[in-house]
């Protein structure tokens, strides 16, 4: 049964991702990208990676998409109001995902596919055990990203 859920989610992910790159309007593309990320989150859960599935929703569909929406709004969503039916596609795909989620939450889907779920505890132990140096490097990268984004995003002409 988990196999059917996987292929359904995969179809939703591919369809939504294709819609992302063929949209003319950036806001509509972002809507489809959110659906695509949620489909991938369900796939991650089915693969036995619940921690990654939660991260996908929180960080990708939450934080990164919000950044994109901010930038689209600052640049100017010039054609947002011209396609009033644009929400139908994401809603249909999202409904499929919601039905899958409801089915999974009833507990009748059984265990995830694969060799069993890898719990967040093991991921954390691995992240701060053998991969501790890489975690520090990721922290450097994030700090550099914050400083770089602040430097690039400041108002010009104020430093004089």
């Amino acid at each position, binding site marked *: *049964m*988990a*196999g059917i859920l*996987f*292929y359904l989610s*995969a179809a939703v*992910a*591919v369809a939504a*991702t*294709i819609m*992302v*790159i063929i949209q003319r309007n*950036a806001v509509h*593309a972002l809507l489809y*990208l959110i659906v*695509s*990320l949620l489909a*991938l989150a369900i*796939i*991650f859960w*089915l*693969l*036995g*990676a619940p*921690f*990654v599935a939660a*991260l996908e929703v929180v*960080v*990708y569909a939450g*934080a*990164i998409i919000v*950044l*994109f929406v*901010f*930038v*689209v709004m*600052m*640049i100017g969503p010039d054609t947002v109001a011209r396609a009033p039916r644009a929400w139908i596609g994401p809603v249909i795909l999202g409904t499929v995902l919601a039905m899958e989620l409801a089915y999974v939450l009833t507990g009748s889907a059984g265990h*995830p*596919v*694969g*060799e*069993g779920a*890898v719990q967040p505890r*093991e*991921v954390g132990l*691995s*992240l701060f055990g053998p*991969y501790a140096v*890489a975690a520090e490097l*990721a922290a450097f*990268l*994030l700090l550099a*990203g*914050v400083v*770089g*984004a602040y430097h*690039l*995003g400041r108002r*010009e002409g104020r430093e004089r």
Partner: protein
Amino acid sequence: MTAVPLAHVLVLAGILFVVGLVGVLARRNLLFMLLGVEIMLNAAGLAFVAAGSRWAAADGQVMFVFILAMAAAEVAVGLALVLLLYRRRGNLDPDAGGGDA
């Protein structure tokens, strides 16, 4: 893997990667090119998680966390650059460069 072979997950990751690559190559809008990069990073993360799930190891998920951190930093800097370009040029065309900036 009982219900879904590893090859099918990798094929899905490949499809998503190619879609993202087409987005980067075909769109002439910096915002959509950044979206394509995000899609490609996500597909790479899917491949990592699938491989980690195949052998029930945590390493795949750890690699996904690193990809996530890198994607967040890349998006922050990339979107700041997009905003800067938009303020200076007034459009988001990556081909509109040259010596007139």
